């Protein structure tokens, strides 16, 4: 029987897969084929039939894969030896051109998806750039000092001495710094500073400036450069001052200030200060701020504290530079011993040894974000906000990644034909993965560029929101490199799954355009959608909670009026107060005038109550307090629970009268408080009134005992209640009045409600930022859903057509298409809500007075999320539902 085997045809079939692989050169193929033929000849000689010989020869040649690997390993050596690199590059160039062409074609063909992807990505990356800028700025505080990592601040803890919620204080005694340098070898240098505002004058020019008193070792510890003057001597002598260039220019114009004298105005007296230098101004990201530095010895209290070795009076901020080899635990224990040694001998501490202060050290770099002491030099940031924003940035990134992955996988079907053709023509899986990954990366790079543009144009708004002045220009290369890197990572992360999916398809079906959607793929896509909306729900609920709490704080009844009340500072001429008051009241728009030592929104004085009726041995009570002038209670609309308030009509008869708050009465357990004898601030007296509790600190703290008393010389602020109309004229009247009595002082005032709102400014700021980014996250998620909905609707066009022909209404189709997404969003809400609840509770714990986290918040969030999701889906669904079924069914 004649064999039907045709050797040439068999060889050609064998050769085909090798021909399409770039690994085998023409030479290689010829050589291999020759070897195969030689082997066949040899086998035939050994008695094989031709067909059997062929199969045996092919078998002996070995497995295609291992052969290809072997040739692949020597491929580049051949290119080098045979100098075919040019052809190689040409081929690669051609392939690249082909990739780019097909990519662009695909993107163009589905420009809607491309746009959605690109927008989502760009907005996400722009958000991340902005958040990154913000975080970078917050983290950059104080790092500019040469020894930043070796500078530590010494602070004090007074056990049992709670004030504003903590017993830790940033201030330390005068002799501490010098003692540290003298007795602790690990302390290289130390300096003391004390914030001080001064009224400085030269000739006609007068300015109120905030500066610091400091020892001259200030320059040894910090890297603030002395632009003129001698570092060793600049701040040694009393009455010497170093100016920042800006202040020097204000006082001296272009003249050289060094050696000249300026005038310090204080309490109506004039002192001469000698300018001994010019110091560079601190950058914005420094927790130490000043417009001048004056010698600490200028302060007579400091001189006295130092001479007497006064360890029990703390007014100064101590900063030290430690040696590199300093052991912190050792230093801590030494500091403890020092406090015991210096304070333990004093009578008070011998009786109350548990109250001896403890000195701690904290790194300079921790001060801005991690320090919450009493009397911080400047308002600090909060590391928790850094964490919050990092989390938000990552979540936004996640949402953008999911968008890309979902849209790309969904779109895969459209590229199926291309993938099929490539596979048939010999493309490897690796090549295809590479192609689709590069596509994702390319799109991400485009996204990065767009994002930078977006970030640049959104920066002014962002600066307004944060209250910072960030710029894109000053950021170092590393920052941009990490942005690009972030883009690449997003590209790879979101590209890898679609690439794997697409490259896996079997070519036969793909070329025909038939692609069965596995359940698995839909499940992954659904999981991603759920993740996206869970994240969105968390952000949304957090935003709602923050807003509610801030609104609560702003509208809550603090127990006193804040509207139309001005505080006017009165730094001197206090004996003239009655006349000033009379003058002010002449204006019909001025309704009432009183005065106080502390602003009613922030009564921060706290002292021990000396004695009270029924006090037992060992009883102790510290109460917040402020000295006030008659009219205080009425002006603020405080409610009296019992007794009378201080009024001018009813002056107190000889004995001092005190008004206390309900909390104090409750703590005392007094049933009948009026008339109880009470001694406070060295004044024996009695309780004449009880005022209803009002919030005189902040909503972060519980209301504590409060004492009000009258002192005719101890007040700094005049409180003025005015009518709302014609405010400029009223202000003019007040200013004129103050100018008559205090000609040397500028008119300085603020509205009580403004000041109150400022206390929560950083909360408001964070609330706004979180909400902005929550909205952005939501938008990106909805963009993704929009794309996905569009895609899935297209997929089901025919189904919808059939349903319509069979009598489905538009509403039926709408329900059909929204059902799936609704289910996903509901699952997302179920996951997101507990998380949101937990996060919100954490944040609210910071407030002593806070909103109750009720279900309405969650319902609102759920409804909002659903509505957003529906609106993303419904447009497409509606279009599909309205379409003529004939068009849909005619497709094939």
């Amino acid at each position, binding site marked *: 029987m004649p064999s039907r085997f045709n050797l040439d045809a068999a060889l050609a079939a064998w050769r085909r897969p090798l021909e399409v692989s770039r690994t085998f050169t023409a*030479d*290689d193929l*010829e*050589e*291999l084929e*020759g*070897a*195969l*033929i*030689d*082997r066949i000849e*040899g086998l035939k000689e050994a008695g094989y039939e031709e067909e059997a010989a062929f199969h045996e*020869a092919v078998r*002996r*040649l*070995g*497995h295609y894969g*291992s*052969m290809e690997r*072997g*040739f692949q*390993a*020597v491929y580049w*050596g*051949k290119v*080098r*030896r045979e100098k075919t690199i040019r052809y190689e590059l040409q081929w690669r160039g051609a392939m690249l051109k082909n990739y780019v062409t097909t990519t662009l074609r695909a993107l163009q063909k589905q420009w809607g998806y491309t746009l959605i992807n690109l927008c989502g990505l760009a907005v996400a990356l722009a958000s991340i750039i902005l958040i990154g800028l913000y975080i970078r700025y917050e983290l950059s505080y104080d790092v500019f000092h040469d020894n930043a990592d070796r500078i530590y601040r010494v602070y004090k803890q007074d056990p049992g001495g709670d004030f504003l919620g903590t017993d830790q204080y940033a201030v330390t005694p005068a002799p501490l710094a010098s003692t540290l340098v003298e007795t602790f070898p690990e302390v290289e240098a130390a300096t003391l500073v004390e914030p001080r505002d001064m009224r400085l004058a030269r000739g006609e020019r007068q300015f109120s400036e905030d500066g610091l008193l400091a020892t001259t070792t200030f320059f040894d510890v910090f890297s603030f450069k002395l632009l003129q003057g001698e570092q060793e001597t600049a701040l040694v002598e009393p009455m010497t001052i170093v100016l920042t260039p800006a202040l020097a220019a204000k006082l001296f114009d272009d003249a050289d200030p060094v050696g000249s004298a300026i005038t310090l105005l204080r309490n109506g007296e004039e002192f001469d200060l000698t300018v001994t230098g010019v110091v560079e101004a601190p950058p914005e990201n420094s927790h130490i701020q000043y417009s001048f530095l004056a010698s600490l010895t200028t302060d007579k209290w400091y001189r006295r504290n130092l001479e007497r070795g006064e360890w029990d009076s703390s007014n100064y901020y101590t900063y030290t530079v430690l040696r590199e080899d300093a052991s912190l635990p050792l230093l801590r224990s030494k500091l403890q011993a020092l406090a015991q040694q210096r304070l333990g001998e004093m009578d008070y501490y011998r009786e109350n040894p548990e109250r001896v202060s403890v000195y701690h050290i904290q790194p300079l770099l921790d001060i801005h974000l991690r320090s919450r002491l009493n009397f911080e030099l400047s308002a600090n940031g909060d590391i928790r906000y850094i964490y919050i924003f990092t989390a938000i940035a990552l979540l936004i990134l996640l949402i953008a990644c999911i968008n890309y992955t979902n849209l790309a996988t969904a779109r895969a079907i459209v590229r199926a034909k291309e993938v099929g053709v490539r596979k048939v023509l010999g493309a490897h899986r690796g090549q295809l993965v590479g192609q689709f990954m590069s596509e994702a990366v390319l799109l991400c790079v485009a996204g990065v560029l767009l994002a930078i543009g977006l970030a640049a144009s959104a920066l002014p708004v962002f600066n307004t929101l944060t209250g910072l002045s960030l710029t894109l220009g000053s950021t170092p290369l590393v920052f941009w490199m990490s942005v690009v890197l972030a883009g690449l990572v997003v590209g790879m992360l979101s590209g890898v799954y679609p690439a794997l999916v697409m490259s896996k398809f079997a070519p036969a079906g793909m070329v025909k355009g038939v692609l069965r959607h596995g359940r698995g793929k839909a499940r992954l896509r659904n999981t991603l959608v759920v993740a996206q909306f869970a994240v969105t729900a968390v952000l949304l609920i957090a935003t709602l909670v923050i807003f509610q709490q801030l609104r609560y704080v702003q509208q809550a009844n603090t127990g006193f009026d804040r509207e139309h009340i001005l505080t006017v500072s009165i730094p001197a001429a206090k004996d003239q107060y009655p006349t000033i008051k009379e003058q002010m009241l002449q204006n019909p728009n001025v309704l009432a005038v009183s005065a106080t030592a502390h602003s009613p929104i922030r009564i921060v004085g706290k002292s021990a109550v000396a004695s009270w009726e029924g006090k037992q041995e060992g009883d102790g009570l510290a109460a917040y307090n402020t000295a006030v002038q008659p009219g205080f209670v009425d002006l603020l609309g405080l409610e009296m629970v019992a007794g009378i308030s201080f009024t001018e009509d009813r002056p107190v008869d000889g004995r001092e009268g005190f008004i206390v708050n309900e909390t104090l009465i409750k703590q005392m357990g007094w049933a009948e408080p009026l008339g109880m004898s009470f001694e406070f601030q060295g004044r024996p007296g009695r309780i004449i009134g009880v005022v209803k509790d009002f919030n005189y600190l902040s909503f972060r703290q519980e209301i504590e005992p409060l004492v009000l008393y009258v002192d005719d010389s101890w007040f700094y602020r005049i409180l003025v209640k005015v009518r709302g109309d014609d405010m400029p004229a009223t202000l003019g009247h007040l200013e004129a009045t103050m100018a008559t009595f205090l000609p040397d002082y500028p008119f300085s005032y603020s509205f009580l409600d403004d000041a109150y709102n400022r206390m929560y400014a950083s909360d408001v700021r964070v609330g706004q930022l979180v909400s902005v980014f929550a909205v952005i996250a939501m938008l990106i998620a909805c963009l993704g859903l929009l794309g996905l909905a569009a895609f899935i609707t297209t997929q089901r066009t025919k189904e919808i057509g059939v349903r319509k022909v069979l009598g489905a209404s538009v509403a039926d189709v709408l329900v059909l298409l929204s059902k799936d997404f609704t289910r996903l969003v509901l699952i997302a809400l179920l996951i997101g809500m507990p998380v949101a609840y937990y996060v919100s509770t954490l944040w609210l714990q910071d407030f002593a007075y806070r909103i109750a986290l009720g279900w309405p918040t969650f319902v609102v969030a759920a409804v909002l999320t659903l509505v957003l999701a529906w609106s993303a889906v419904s447009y497409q669904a509606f279009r599909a539902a309205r379409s003529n079924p004939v068009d849909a069914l005619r497709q094939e």
Partner: protein
Amino acid sequence: MLTRELAGASVRPLILSILSEGESYGYAILSRIEALSGGVLAWDDGTLYPVLHRMQNKGLLESSWRRADTGRRRKYYALTDKGRRALEREKQQWLQVDAMLAQLWGLQPRLT
């Protein structure tokens, strides 16, 4: 059968030695090794060529196409000077190993 590692290590000296007898082509080299080993040493045919190409990339061999009697073209390999030096080194090394093992096993080294 030789282990994979030993088979792998011996390819190079075998090829160098066979070609030192004169130029040859793939199938002839394979047949020669089969004959020499008596079936102890066997690779897939396809793995010989990458080895030859690698040696050529390194400059140990040179190749040229010749037309054989059958009319087909064949690629012939020949040793270069570098290849000859490489063979000398291989030879020394294998002899050293042989001598060491022989001493340990109390045999007469036979490779000499």
